[in-house]
Structure formats: structure tokens, C-alpha cells
């Protein structure tokens, strides 16, 4: 039942309505006044509370379920970080409060910039981008600004491996670049020969994530960096997988010129059912002049915003204010709690969990896409055999997992592996939880063999069974109408 269907004309959450004083609005021309109130729900406060409380219960979430969604780093989101960001001194602060009256907030941003600099091995950080994709945009826009500044005007291509996340090519397009794809080899590494052939005077840069979305560490990364740099291109690091190497390996050391981070992944801020995130960018010295504003600096007189005048090459701001401030505060709080020793432990245990899970799934009969490789913090299972033999696809396995109380791994990404599951357990899950998942996977495989139709019609225990996506797209219904 929709909230609107709970409504009745004239009903309201009266405690939320201002004491009704008739206001004289005659200074506004009549034609510019609203004539009909919007058709919002007319409901009581209890109805609202009950409706959305009940709705929330139809979601899987970290707080309720193991959620091994590859590439998404669904780990524990510390409640303490949420509380810190919710302190009235932050939650009530207007973003345009002059810096001299918001020193506490600026200090946090500055410290976070420094922490991110340290863990990425880069020269400078801007927190401006509001999610990973915007971080990518900022990064590629900086590459563009760099080439333009050097009057290197022919470079109109961004190279991306076929395994790349969709945001990579989409970003390149948004920055006015053409996308050139290069293949990934059977062992999960980028095809270095293809790269060699692809690079040239048109190459603006290469976008790469390492470990890649194939769940393996790009072993030839130093060679790749050399190839791209020698061709005059720059190297972009998609930091979505930073959790795999946090405190163990640094993108700056691998030769990347620019990167973004997903604070909502590596730095454990909640995903919020789709957002918000935060996608800070880090750059080496070369690209520092182009960083997006705002930036915080530390001066004798205190913390201050870096002005546009100080950074004339900046690609500009990405939002009206300073980005998703509250997410930065949460990430900062999390980083404080990890500390120097805690950072590498993240990567270590994320990797341990992934490798353990991969090994045990193989024991249970599953096939890895890259069986010869170490898993990074995630790995790919391919269900093509199961699909061929029993007709049970990755989608079917995914839906059936829901019935066992586990969120499905990422399916059908990266696209190059058929019928794939990209599985990322994260470091905050216990071995017992992994064992439970393994057992469920084993059971489902048995079911698929014995009664494939049962698996193909799953799920059975969710609020709805499989939804008709075709109807959703064909008979577009995007809003409630009475």
C-alpha cells in the first residue's frame, strides 16, 4: 500500500504544521502564486511512522544481512561515525559560514585530506566530488586540463579495459573523450600487448582499477604505467577497490597520476539505499594545479578555504558547496578509529575472507573465473556450467540466495565473464557468516541439479516474487496518480 493510499482528505500530521496565521501575500502578483496545493499524501504522524517503518523491513541491509555484493564493499558502517557527523555543531552548521567561524569543521576536512594523501601515496587531495562517478569526472577533467594546458590538443581518447565499471566509459564521454576498450586476458590481467597497440598520440589516459573488477591484482601494473606514460598519457586509478589494498599498496606508488576514492566503500560510510557517497580525488604533483575546489589549507591563522585565485587552473567546483560534507565527517571518524595499525588490517582481512570463501566454494563444486589467481578482496565465480547443464543462471542462483537470508553477490558484472557472481565478503564478516553462506551456496547447487525449476522460480520468501521488468519499461508507471 502506498503512502497516498493511507490518506484521507484533510488528514494531517498536525503537530508538524505551523500555527496557522493567515499571511498577506498580496505583494506577489496573483499569477505567480500557486493555486492548487500539491497532491501529497494526507496522513497522520502514526501512519507515516508505521508506513515507513514497515517499508524499511522489506529491505536487505548490512545491519540485517550478509551482503557480499562485489565491487560495493558492503562492510559494517560504524554507528559512532554516524553519531559524530550528527553532532549539532556539524549538523546545524551552514555551509557558507565564514571559515573563521567554522574552524572545527575545516580542521576535520583538512585532516581527512591528509589521511587520504597518506594512504594513497599521492601529493594532494580534494574532497569535492560527491561520489565515485563524480570523482572520475573530476579526475578525467584534470587529465583534460593538463593536456590542454600543455597545448597537447590531439589527445581525445581514454582507454578502458573491457572489465571496467560502467562509470569509467560514461565518464570519459562526459569529459568529451572517445572511449577505446582493451581486452582482459584469460588470467584476469589486462592485455598488455593490446594496450601497447592502443596507446599513441591520441591517448589522453588509461582508466584502471587495481585490483581489477576481475578480483585480481594487475601484476604488470608498473609496465602498464610505463607504457601509458611513455605514450604521453596519464594513468587514472578507479579507487572503488581500494579496500583490497588499503595501507598495503598505494596507487601513487604504482604510478597512477590521479584517482578517486569511494568513501562510502573503503571508508565505511553507509550506502543509504543508493547514496550518498563521497568520491575524493587524489593527484600527484603534476595534476595538483587542476584539483576541483573547494580545498582546505592550514595557515598560521587557522584553517582556510583555498581560493579560486590561488588555484586558477582548477577544473572548478563540482557542487554548490563543499560536497557531501557529512560523508566526509563519517569517513574521518572511521579513519581515526582505524588509525595507523588499523588501515592495513582492512586489506589483509578483506583478502583473507575472500580467499577463504573462494576456496570453500570451489570445494562445494563452484568454478572460479580465475582459478589460478589469488583473490583480492573479491573474486568471480562463473555459473556458465550450471546454466548450460541445468538451465539455472546466475540470476536464478542470486534470487534463490535471498531465500536463504543472504543478499546476492553482484551478477553479470564484469560483463566479460559469462554468468558471473562477483563476491566480496569484506573484512567485517565472521568466518561463521562465511560458512553459512557457503552452506547455502552448496545447498542451492544441489537444488539446481535436482530440481532446477525450483531454483528458477525463486525467490519464495520475499515480499514479492520476480518482477516483470519488461512491463515496467513498456508501460512506464513512475508516479502515483489518483
Amino acid at each position, binding site marked *: 500500500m502506498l503512502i497516498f493510499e493511507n490518506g484521507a482528505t484533510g488528514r494531517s500530521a498536525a503537530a508538524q*504544521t*505551523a500555527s496557522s496565521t493567515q499571511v498577506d*501575500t498580496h505583494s*506577489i502578483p496573483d*499569477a*505567480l502564486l500557486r493555486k492548487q496545493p500539491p497532491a*501529497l499524501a494526507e496522513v497522520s*504522524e502514526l501512519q*507515516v511512522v508505521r508506513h515507513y517503518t514497515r517499508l524499511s523491513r522489506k*529491505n536487505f541491509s548490512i545491519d*540485517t544481512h550478509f551482503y557480499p*555484493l562485489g565491487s*560495493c564493499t558492503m562492510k559494517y558502517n560504524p554507528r559512532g561515525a554516524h553519531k559524530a557527523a550528527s553532532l549539532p*555543531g*556539524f*549538523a*546545524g*552548521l*551552514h*555551509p*557558507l*559560514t565564514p571559515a573563521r567561524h567554522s574552524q572545527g*569543521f575545516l580542521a*576535520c576536512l583538512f585532516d581527512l585530506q591528509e*589521511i587520504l594523501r597518506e594512504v594513497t601515496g599521492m601529493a594532494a587531495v580534494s574532497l569535492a566530488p560527491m*561520489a565515485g562517478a563524480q570523482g572520475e*569526472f573530476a579526475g578525467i577533467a584534470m587529465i583534460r586540463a593538463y593536456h590542454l594546458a600543455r597545448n597537447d590538443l590531439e589527445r581525445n581518447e581514454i582507454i578502458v579495459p573491457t572489465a571496467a565499471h*560502467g562509470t569509467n566509459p560514461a565518464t570519459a*564521454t*562526459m569529459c568529451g573523450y572517445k*572511449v577505446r576498450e582493451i581486452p582482459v586476458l584469460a588470467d584476469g590481467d589486462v592485455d598488455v600487448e593490446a594496450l601497447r597497440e592502443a596507446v599513441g598520440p591520441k591517448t589522453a589516459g588509461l582508466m584502471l582499477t587495481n585490483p581489477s573488477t576481475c578480483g585480481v591484482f594487475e601484476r604488470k601494473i608498473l609496465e602498464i604505467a610505463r607504457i601509458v606514460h611513455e605514450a604521453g598519457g596519464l594513468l587514472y586509478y578507479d579507487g572503488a577497490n581500494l579496500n583490497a589494498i588499503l595501507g*598495503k*599498496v598505494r596507487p601513487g606508488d604504482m604510478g597512477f597520476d590521479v584517482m578517486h576514492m569511494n568513501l562510502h566503500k573503503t571508508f565505511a560510510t553507509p550506502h*543509504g*539505499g*543508493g547514496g*550518498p*557517497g563521497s568520491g575524493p580525488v587524489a593527484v600527484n604533483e603534476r595534476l595538483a594545479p587542476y584539483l576541483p575546489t573547494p580545498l582546505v589549507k592550514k595557515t598560521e591563522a587557522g584553517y582556510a578555504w583555498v581560493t579560486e585565485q590561488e588555484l586558477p587552473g582548477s*577544473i*572548478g*567546483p563540482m*557542487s*554548490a558547496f563543499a560536497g*557531501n560534507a557529512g560523508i566526509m565527517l563519517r569517513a574521518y571518524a572511521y579513519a*581515526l578509529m*582505524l*588509525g*595507523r595499525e588499523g588501515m592495513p588490517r582492512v586489506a589483509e582481512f578483506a583478502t583473507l575472507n575472500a580467499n577463504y570463501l573462494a*576456496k570453500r566454494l570451489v570445494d562445494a563444486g563452484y568454478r572460479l573465473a580465475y582459478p589460478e589467481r589469488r583473490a583480492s578482496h573479491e573474486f568471480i565465480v562463473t555459473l556458465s556450467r550450471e546454466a548450460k547443464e541445468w538451465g539455472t543462471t546466475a540470476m536464478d542462483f542470486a534470487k534463490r540466495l535471498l531465500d536463504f537470508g543472504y543478499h546476492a553477490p553482484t551478477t553479470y*558484472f564484469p560483463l566479460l565473464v559469462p554468468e558471473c557472481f562477483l563476491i566480496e565478503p569484506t*573484512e567485517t564478516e*565472521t568466518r561463521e557468516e562465511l560458512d553459512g553462506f557457503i552452506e547455502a551456496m552448496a545447498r542451492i547447487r544441489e537444488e539446481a541439479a535436482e530440481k532446477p525449476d525450483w531454483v528458477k522460480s525463486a525467490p519464495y520468501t520475499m*515480499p*514479492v516474487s520476480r*518482477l*516483470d521488468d519488461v512491463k515496467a*519499461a513498456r508501460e*512506464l508507471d*513512475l*508516479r502515483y496518480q489518483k
Partner: protein
Amino acid sequence: MSFIPHTPEDVRQMLGELDIQSIDALFDEVPPELLVRDLPGLAPAMNEMEMLQHMGDRAAANFNGLCFMGAGAYEHHIPSAVWDIAARGEFMTAYTPYQAEASQGTLQLVYEYQSMMTALMGMDVSNASLYDGASALAEAVLMAVRGNRKDKTRRILVAGTLNPRYLRATRAIVEPQGITLETLPASDSLCLANISKYEKQASEGFCALVIPMPNFFGQIEDVHGLTDWAHRHQALVIGVVNPVAVNLLVPPGQWGQTGADIAVGDGQPLGLPLASGGPYFGFMCCRQALVRQMPGRLIGKTVDSEGREGYALTLQAREQHIRRAKATSNICTNQGLAVTAATIHMALMGASGLQSVAQSCFAGAHQLSQQLESLPDVERLGGAAYFHEFVIRLPVAPEKVIDEMVSRGILPGYDLGEFFPDLGNALLVCVTEMRSPADIAQYVTALSETLKNLEGAQSC
């Protein structure tokens, strides 16, 4: 700390299963020279208590009094239920609802959000959110360029009364695609002038016109005239709308003869705290005809295999994860939780609640401005009707006034000198329903005393 649950025994068993001696072995594919030994720049771990004490000290080092600043972010009352429910783990710690069957909570909620937003704006379609108001405008510009098949200029006309921060961000985002933004200068009334003034700029052709409502100075533009003018030039109209003001003012769907084509804005006034600037969210609505040009997620209603109603992501072929380089936008993660809060907020406020908020804002702003105008040496700028913000010119530099007022517990407004030095000592002042008559009186007293002090100091 790292929130890692592994006991030494767990590690032993897991390593045994993997037949390796130490976790480090798992990193043996990494070129050894790349392995980091230490991160000397980082401090030792704090426990939660220490972290919260540290953050508490930091929070206390920010201004914490009465806020009369708007300029794109507004302090409204947020019903307590909003965040109590939005912060439930099931909403807060879920991912994007890719597995529809396990995400009906978020999916239905966003469908309700889309319904509310279209009702509020009088438009056909709403997406599931963009990052913020400014970047939403950038996406609207890109969308207009895709959507206006008749235009080849890639020129966008922008009211010079638009929030300058929106203009900057939009420029940064759209210029790499060869789109140009040109501003229509404001008149002395702090509104756009009569249309005739802009015919020259229009004559070269343009793709879309961006109209703020109210504008950055709080003033109410002639949205009907501007909309019809743009449409006559075969341009699209992009409204940049305050979602609270629109409860009092004509919604973009009803601008001019046929309504605006795209409406965007920042959803912050709908249940999001000021929060040092975010997370807020950008909303975007459009006419039905433009739906396939929409960036961002859309939730559609459909049925399950047993015919029960359900909700799912739809028209995903527009999006980067399917369409990749040809997607309508690169956006992936959006501002889901902020939308969750806004939806609950709108449900709680209802039309009557939002209208009464808009009315209180209007009334409070007019009360304060009238009292300020009566102060010696204080002048109100701008000729049109205004909503909950207005501009005053001070006899001294706003910066000094701000500092002095802050020491009296009041943040008196936004110093327009940053972007509009020509206005001369101009301050943008905002009043929402949160400011009581007593607060307003306090402002007036503080300002008149402040001015006396500063002018006294100057004349010495």
C-alpha cells in the same frame, strides 16, 4: 580496531584451509617493491569514545547560534520522526536496490518520492535524485542539449540572478562537452529585465533558458513571461526551484502556456539539516516526452510473477551500468538516504504543512526586512516581490558586521561581496519558520547596535 571479528583461532583455521602460513602470502602477486611497510603520517587508533570526544571538540569550534543565512541552504524544522526512521539500518545500510525482491522498501519509497516530487513541481516525471542542486542543473543542461533536437548551438542562456555557485559548478561539468553558458544580466531590481532586453542574445539561437525561482536574491522572477519567450525561440526551459517556495509560488509545470520542460533544484529544504553543506540531494523533474533523456535512476511500478504490485529500477538502458559510454550520465551512487528523509518529511508535512512553512517564511522575511529598512543607513535592494530572502545594503563592510553579530550569537546573512562586489556592502538575509518573532527582534537590535559600534569606530 578496524571492526574485524577474526580471532587468532579463526585466522589459523582459515590459513590452514588455504594452505598458507600467513596473510601476507595472499599478497604474493603484488610486486614486492610496492608493498607498504608503514604509514607514519597516520596517528594511532582512537576508540569510539576518544573519537567522539575529539569530534565533539571540533563540533564545538563551529558557530552555533541563530542562523539568518540562506543563499542556497535553508534551516527548516525537520520533524523528529524523519531521521529516526531514515536512519534505521534497513534504509541506511542497504545498497542501491539492484535486487528488487530484497529491496522493495527502498524501491517503493523512491516511487513515492517520485510521485511527491512531480506533484510538488507539477511535472510528469521525477528521477530518483542527483547529487545536489548545482550538479542537477548541470545534468539538466546536458539533458536539454540531448533533448532539444531543434537546437544546434549548444548555447544555454542563464539568468544572471541564478545562484553563482550553481553557475560555476554547471560550467565545470558541461564545458568539456563544448556547451557554452551565457548569462542574461539582471536589472537593478535584482530580477531579469524585460525580455526585450535579451532579444539580441536570443537571436543567435539557444538551446535552453535557465530560470531560478525565487532567484538568488530571493526575488520572484516573471516565470510566465520568460518561459513563453524561451519557448517562442524553440528553446527549452529549465527551472531552478526552491521546493519549499513552490508551495506558495506557481510550480514550474505551470509556468507560461505550457510549463517548464525541466525542473531542478536542491532538495535540502525538504528534511535535510544544513550539515555543513551535505549530504543534500538534487531533484530533477521533466515532461513525459523527455523521460528517455533523464539521467539517474527511475523506479517504475510493475507486477511480480503472481500479479502482485512491486517496484523496480526501470529504463536502465539510459544508465552507465548498461549503456556505458552512451549513457545519459555517468551517475551511479546518488543521494538515496537524503531522498529517504525527504520522502518521510513530505509525508509528515503534507501539503498543508509545507504551505504553512512557506507562509511563515514569507511572513518572517517581510517582518525582518521592514524593520531593517527602518534602520538608518540600511537600505533594501531589489524591486520585485521576494520570498524568504532579501538583500540589504549596509553602511559598512558586511564582513565586519558578520563578525560582530556572530559574537552576539547571530549569523546575519551571506556577504554578497564574494560574487557581487558591485552591489556594494550587500548582505543576503534569510528568514525561515525557525526564526521566531523574538529572534527577529534580537536581530534588529543586534544589527543596530553593531552598526552604531562600527560606524562610531569608523568616524573616530
